[in-house]
């Protein structure tokens, strides 16, 4: 028996080897060719990248730039041929492939937001949308860029996919934006989703401390959007189960552009744009309170004075504004083409994007080379290579002592400047605003009052302080390679094996430099200080899966997939600080004082999964699956973690009884789990290793840091989602609806314990629970669809009910907290009311005052296309149901010590028509004195005109004479207008950058506005 088994195994191996080695031998006689074109039904435009495939053989090809596709060596026989393209309804046809002959089958596709046969990338490979039991957020990047050119992944994703929340916290172009999918899933761990690029998991660090006061650098903007073909958003644990222990915050899969068989097609694009700061700074500087400040000095009644509109941030003839018009230029060239067996896509791109100050900008070089090879009928290999060199710089702002905005707004009256005496004139002298205004108001001698008032060098209040702050350096220079190799081996028609090796490697150099300045505007660091951090990051992805498809009954098919995934993420950091170096030589080595440090992080994950998909006809899909994970960050006592899931997708419109009104209607539902591993060393008991001054020297000592927790588990996210996708009226109207309810259990929290235990650090425990519930609705309709005019309207709305449902002790962040029964990071402080006698009353107890996370998000867009030539597009973005702390007002009113003595808080002097203090003035004054933020927390609902664009496709007859096959010109505007009742600078601003919990507007640069033109042509 044993010899029989061995013989059988050898037989199998030999058969497999033969199938691999000699695939061409038997094809000459028994195969044929399938070819044809794929075009848009309305315009007749060729649809490049349409995927044409024969499901029964699991073979396919992409249409080239002319819309032509070609399938060679197709075994003779009858087949169903399918075609799919994002944004279009799928098509299919029955074909008969003759031995040695050619069959031609062309398709004309109509646009549709719902395409159930569209291929999406999942953890087990490509699947049709109809097979996937979850809502699939797919972004056709090419189309998005045609409507609104974007320079970064974050702005590209903003307002595009329901449930994905992108929040730009600053107007600095190099600053990170926060990204969350279906709310906050973790109290203490990162809520940033996993990112995959062509199958390789990549570093998703989104809060890299820039030393710039609040805003962070991010690795998410390294990708060039122009190199991306599509983005798929896996929204929650029910969909992300097979991604395992690190996926409960969701997964974003990015697919870059690939080659198409055919002649070499060159594409060139350029973008030229301008960015500017639209803020009316004077309206929120001290000027409205000028009368107040003067009143405090002169004893006059406080009045607002809005006639004088100078602001340190807007400038005048003596004092230049720190802001400028930032220019953006971008150039890109790509070529794609290839034979039937090998295709290629190669591109190079350059972006130089300046922010609104000279210390803000991004310079990025991207290169990409993707290849696909059909080694044999049974083996295909795809290789992706992406390289980026990016240099980012951020201005010092937000809650920094050297904040550009903070200095200008915070110094108020004592900001220094050159002015002539307002009464007697003469040579301008060095004075300060307070003295100058006092002299203007009273006629006092400027020199005298200058001596009296201008003596507080708090902050950086010296002439040209803006200029000196802009000399501070916060830069990040990164060189990054991301690559992957995917091999797909189909030894039998019923089996698909797939293996991926992915790699993401970068080296970044961060520099934070205070240059030597003899004026000493920055105290001791004016003698020169440099902080440098060199970081090397390496992520390795190894994946393998094998899927076998077999028919249980004529209409019942089983697809069983088993696979594994291994990830290793490693970060090495070396840092050094130097102080007091020679002018012009910012170097650690040249410093009088210097110190160094390093850090190391490595995390490994191994996951094994099994998925069984049972298909009934092409209509009902039931997919149970389970993944087993182990991770190096788990507690020592923990074994394998198990994440199960089950999903059902039913294309009800396949039933004959279903109303004909619907072209397609699908019901879907899924339940599943995924996880979030603790921090790399959270489970371990640790000692600090630190230098100790002992016996007149410095030696290293071990001191206690924190107790360990060998039982520490990953957070477990459990989600159920149900919904439907519908397409009506021949694809003119489509709708998606999803309800989700997800819960994160075993939240990893650093929990304070008794200090008498003798550990300065907190112990990590699994204690918390968070829930996120909501609905996501997306509607798209063609209001008009004629040959001359197409008017498409899109709208989406997502709601979020977020709550911390279990947490033994609150976790406090100033006036925000995580607390059981309240939303994530709730604002919580002592309210102030007006008592019966008209006096302000500060409550003794803190109460819930609002939440920083929007409970409603929506977008509405309109796209009008005339004669297939001109497209006008507009996108409105809405967020609401949340609040924001106006930290600037709170500071100016004295809460943080800013004091009202210089008149920076007009709110507490506001009087009614009778000259009496208003209730709000009393409330804010009392709040400032009592140290509560309550009256400074405002509703932060807003609607933004996020994008407006006009695109013009130049007629082929015009451009053809230059050898150009297609050309287009787009003019687009971004962040052009905001409707909001929030009284601060920007309802999206956050002085803590992309921080997950803390949200407050304080000395933050609001979002900038932008105009950009984009010219593309193909030849």
């Amino acid at each position: 028996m044993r010899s029989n088994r061995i013989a059988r195994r050898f037989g199998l191996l030999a058969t497999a080897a033969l199938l691999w080695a000699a695939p061409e031998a038997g094809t000459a006689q028994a195969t044929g060719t399938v070819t044809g074109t794929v075009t848009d039904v309305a315009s007749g435009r060729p649809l490049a990248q349409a995927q044409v495939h024969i499901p029964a053989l699991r073979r396919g090809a992409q249409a080239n730039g002319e819309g032509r596709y070609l399938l060679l060596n197709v075994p003779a026989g009858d087949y169903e041929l399918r075609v799919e393209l994002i944004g279009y309804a799928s098509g299919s046809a029955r074909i008969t492939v003759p031995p040695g002959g050619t069959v031609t089958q062309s398709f004309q596709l109509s646009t549709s937001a719902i395409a159930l046969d569209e291929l999406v990338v999942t953890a087990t490979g490509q699947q049709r949308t109809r097979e996937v039991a979850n809502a699939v957020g797919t972004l056709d990047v090419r189309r998005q860029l045609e409507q609104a050119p974007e320079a970064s992944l974050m702005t590209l994703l903003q307002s595009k996919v329901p449930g994905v929340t992108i929040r730009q916290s600053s107007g600095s172009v190099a600053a990170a934006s926060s990204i969350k999918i279906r709310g906050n899933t973790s109290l203490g761990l990162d809520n940033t989703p996993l990112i995959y690029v062509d199958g390789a998991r990549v570093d998703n660090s989104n809060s890299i401390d820039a030393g710039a006061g609040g805003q962070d650098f991010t690795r998410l903007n390294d990708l060039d959007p122009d190199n991306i073909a599509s983005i798929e958003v896996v929204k929650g644990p029910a969909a992300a189960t097979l991604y395992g222990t690190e996926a409960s915050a969701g997964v974003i899969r990015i697919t870059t552009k690939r080659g198409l068989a055919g002649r070499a097609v060159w594409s060139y694009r350029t973008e030229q744009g301008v960015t500017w700061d639209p803020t009316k700074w004077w309206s929120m500087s001290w000027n409205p309170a000028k009368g107040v400040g003067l009143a405090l000095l002169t004893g006059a009644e406080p009045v607002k004075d809005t006639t004088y509109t100078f602001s340190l941030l807007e400038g005048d003839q003596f004092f230049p504004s720190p802001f400028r018009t930032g220019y953006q230029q971008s150039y890109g060239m790509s070529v794609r083409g290839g034979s039937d067996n090998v295709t290629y896509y190669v591109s190079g791109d350059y972006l130089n994007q300046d922010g609104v100050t000279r210390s803000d900008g991004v310079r990025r070089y991207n290169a990409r080379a993707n290849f696909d090879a059909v080694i044999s009928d049974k083996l295909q290999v795809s290789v992706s290579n992406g390289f980026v060199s990016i240099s980012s710089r951020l201005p010092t702002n937000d809650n920094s002592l050297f904040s550009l905005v903070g200095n200008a707004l915070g110094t108020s009256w004592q900001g220094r400047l050159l002015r002539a005496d307002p009464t007697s004139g003469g040579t301008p002298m060095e004075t300060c605003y307070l003295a100058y205004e006092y002299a203007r108001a009273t006629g006092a001698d400027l020199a005298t009052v200058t001596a009296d008032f201008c003596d507080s060098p708090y902050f950086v209040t010296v002439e040209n302080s803006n200029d000196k702050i802009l000399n501070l350096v916060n830069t990040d220079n990164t060189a990054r390679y991301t690559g992957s190799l995917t091999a797909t081996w189909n030894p039998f028609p019923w089996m698909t094996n797939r293996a991926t090796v992915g790699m993401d490697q970068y080296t970044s150099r961060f520099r934070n430099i205070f240059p030597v300045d003899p004026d000493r505007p920055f105290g001791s660091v004016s003698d020169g200080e440099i902080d440098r951090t060199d970081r090397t990051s390496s992520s390795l992805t190894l994946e393998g899966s094998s899927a076998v498809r077999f028919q249980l009954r004529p209409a019942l098919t089983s697809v069983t997939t088993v696979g594994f995934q291994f990830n290793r993420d490693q970060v090495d950091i070396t840092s050094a600080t130097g102080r007091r170096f020679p002018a012009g030589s910012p170097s650690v080595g040249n410093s009088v004082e210097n110190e160094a440090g390093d850090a190391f992080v490595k995390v490994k994950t191994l996951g094994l999964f099994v998925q069984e998909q049972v298909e009934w006809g092409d209509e009902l899909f039931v997919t149970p699956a389970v993944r087993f994970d182990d991770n190096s960050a788990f507690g020592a006592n923990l074994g394998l973690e198990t994440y199960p899931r089950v999903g059902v997708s039913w294309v009800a419109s396949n039933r004959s009884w279903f109303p004909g009104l619907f072209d397609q209607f699908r019901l879907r539902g899924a339940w599943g789990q995924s996880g979030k591993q603790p921090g790399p060393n959270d489970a371990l008991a640790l000692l600090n290793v630190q230098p100790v001054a002992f016996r007149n020297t410095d030696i290293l000592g071990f001191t206690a840091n924190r107790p360990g927790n060998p039982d520490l588990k990953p957070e477990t996210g459990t989600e159920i989602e149900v919904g439907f996708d519908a397409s009506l009226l021949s694809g003119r109207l489509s709708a998606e609806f999803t309800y989700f309810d997800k819960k994160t259990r075993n939240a990893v929290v650093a929990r304070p314990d008794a200090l008498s235990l003798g550990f300065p650090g907190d112990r990590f425990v699994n204690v918390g629970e968070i829930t996120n519930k909501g609905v996501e609705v997306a509607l798209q309709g063609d209001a008009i669809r004629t040959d001359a005019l197409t008017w498409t309207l899109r709208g989406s709305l997502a709601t979020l009910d977020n709550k911390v449902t279990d947490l033994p002790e609150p976790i406090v962040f100033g006036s925000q907290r995580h607390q059981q029964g309240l939303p994530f990071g709730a604002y919580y402080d002592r309210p102030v009311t007006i008592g019966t006698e008209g006096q302000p009353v500060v409550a003794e107890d803190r109460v819930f005052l609002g939440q920083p996370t929007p409970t409603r998000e929506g977008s509405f867009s309109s796209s009008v296309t005339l004669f297939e030539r001109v497209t006008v597009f507009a996108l409105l973005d809405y967020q609401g149901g949340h609040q924001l702390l106006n930290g600037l007002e709170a500071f100016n009113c004295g809460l943080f010590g800013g004091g009202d003595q210089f008149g920076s808080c007009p709110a507490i002097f506001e009087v009614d028509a009778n000259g009496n203090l208003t209730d709000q003035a009393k409330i804010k004054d009392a709040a400032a004195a009592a140290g509560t933020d309550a009256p400074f927390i405002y509703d932060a609902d807003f609607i933004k005109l996020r994008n407006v664009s006009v695109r013009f496709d130049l007629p082929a007859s015009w451009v053809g004479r230059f050898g150009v096959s297609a050309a287009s010109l787009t003019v687009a505007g971004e962040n052009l207008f905001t409707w909001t009742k929030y009284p601060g600078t920007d309802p999206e601003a956050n002085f803590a950058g992309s921080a997950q919990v803390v949200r407050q507007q304080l000395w933050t640069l609001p979002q900038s506005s932008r105009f950009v033109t984009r010219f593309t042509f193909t030849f």
Partner: protein
Amino acid sequence: MYKRRNVRAGGVWIWIAVLLLAATGCSIDELLKVNDPDIVTPEQAAGPAAVPATVAGMVGDFQNSFDNYAIYAALFTDEMILAGTFPTRIDVDERNVQLDPNNGTLEADMFGPFQVARESADRNLASWTGALDDPAYASVKDDLEEGFALANLYGGYVRAMMAEAYCSVVLEPKGQPVTPEAAMEEALSRLQQTQNVATQYGLTDIATAARVGQARALMYLGRYSEAAAAAASVPEDFVFVAEYSDNQSSQYNLVHAYTWGVNPFVLRWTVGDGTAGNRHNELWPYFYEWIDQGLLVDDPPGYEAVEIGIGVALQLAYDAPGMSIPVATGWEAQMDIAEAELRNGQVAQAESRVNGLLANPALNPLKAVNPDLPLAAFTPVSFTGTLATDLPQMARARASGLWLNTDRQATLRRYYQNDGIDLYPTGTQGSDVSFPIPQQEIDNNPHVSGGCG
């Protein structure tokens, strides 16, 4: 046939997966093993090789607790006033300390470091007791003996300081709070043990420091004659210090860091010059004498308080971040002896002893840690035999050499409790003479129900 064959193939692959799972499971731990050179676990820090670093760590823990206590005691007793805006520090400045679960400053800056230092000393004492006789530790015998003596000394000192600072004292992990007097008794025991082992190992300085500590504890307990006896053999010029370093910010002398500022023009603590309003109107009682002595400078150019409008007076005693702070000194021992004499009616003897110290800057501990100080003879005391007038003079005399080293809280609280003499700052201040157990300990220690236990 086709269907049957495929079913069998599917089953094979599932079995292969199961076998892979099982096979890989055997070595998953090895596959996922991570060697992180950046961290140290307790297991890695065990054994003889780790003794020197463990001793150093314990020293660091004590030194960290000591300068934290020194700076907060300075705020509490008006050696300094607050120039910053932190709410809980304002509470300390006003001697009206509130339990505030929203602000962990005091937990992190004072109670926490005390408990870390205590537990560090206690833990090491327990683990080294057996190691002293273990031949495996022979190569680190000197380190071990010094560590053992220091663990006793620090254990005693931390207990004594907590007794001076708190209204009730937690001396064990999640332990039952005890009275300050009970904590002092335990401190005395530890310090006696220190003398025994330090003497045995020939570690004279540690033994002497323990005697000064014993005198400090006995003074607090009102056992003045015993204190004098303990202090008697301490040399006049003896100085035992907490060391700090210029090299890394984590080792900076906090008294310097807070009173000089991270950036020189923004100070968090300053010496009260009596000119600011509200809670800041206190004047350091010896302000002008200290200026004359070169111990402080008023309104230095280029320096500002964090809170706008507060005048700045810069202390010069610790004018560099690496400067040591005296912990136990012959000056303090002599002051204890003099005070015992005063209380015993030996007024002239006490006056002579104190004035001898005040007239001799070379013995001043501040001069010992900062030789560049231009100290001259301080104004002599003139005792009358009436404690109500003599003890305030003693307080000034002690401060002349023990400024900003925790002694003033020990002295003022002692005078307040033992003699009914209140030398704490007045005006708009509260009535606290000690700190409460902070909220974090109350929340997590089942034996503590309130700020005073």
